């Protein structure tokens, strides 16, 4: 079908151009890993990965160096809000003493809309090695249910 063919060509062209720009601009597509972990992001921080299985949603956030006392997770309906304070270099260092300052630091907040309803009372979270893993059990209503089909 000629229509499908032209879409394929556009797709190929798109990919070629993406490949040409890869070295210069950070990739937005999660499937292309970056050669340099960005210290500062132009987009939302922290970056998240969202997984699910039959009974749970899992949110993994990349948040190294966050003061655990400042980490705050709130769940309202089907949104999850992550906020905290990422520690930078110590405050008492003079600016001219820095050879490099690439890491982001400061307060952050991000709200993630979840695809299904979850049971707020059973959410657990773990912060290990700078990765925050949040396990959100789906509410009973959101779990898939088998429906019997009556054949007559």
């Amino acid at each position: 079908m000629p229509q499908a063919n032209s879409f394929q060509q556009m797709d190929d062209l798109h990919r070629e151009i993406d490949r040409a720009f890869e070295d210069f601009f950070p990739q937005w597509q999660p499937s292309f890993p970056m050669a340099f972990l960005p210290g500062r992001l132009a987009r939302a921080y922290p970056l998240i990965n969202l997984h699910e299985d039959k009974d749970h949603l899992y949110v993994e956030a990349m948040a190294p160096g966050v003061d655990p006392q400042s980490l705050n997770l709130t769940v309202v309906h089907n949104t999850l809000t992550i906020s905290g304070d990422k520690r930078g270099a110590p405050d008492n260092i003079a600016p001219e003493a820095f050879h490099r300052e690439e890491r982001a630091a400061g307060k952050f907040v991000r709200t993630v809309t979840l695809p299904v309803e979850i049971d707020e009372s059973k959410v657990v979270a773990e912060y290990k090695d700078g990765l925050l893993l949040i396990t959100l059990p789906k509410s009973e209503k959101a779990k898939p249910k088998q429906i019997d089909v009556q054949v007559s």
Partner: protein
Amino acid sequence: MAEQTVSGPNEPQGNGGWEITRSTERHVRPPVDIYETPDALMLIADMPGVARENLEVRVDEDLLTIQGRAIHVVPGDPIYREFDLTGFFRQFEIGEQIDPEKINADLKYGVLSLRLPKQERSKQRHIEVKVS
């Protein structure tokens, strides 16, 4: 500290500028803060997902290498992903004013803090200026 122009942990660079090692693992350069105090050079690197046993810090002559393997396994099937971590690798040329025996490393919350003490003789010596 000057940054070594060697891009990957081992040899050849793949096409597109991606760093390829013999194990075909992709590495990412972690962002660092480097600042100097009168006694030492301090280096702080974000290396999320790296546990103590997967972290390697090496000094060969005047080349400092920080390397770590990140492990992050999330249960379930992916719906939406924004990041994938495999490994971290970065090298720095450090002047011979660092005492490699006394380097101190600390890994906490996915952040590596390195303290590189300066060798005795290159600490700043205050010179008295006498005005007559």
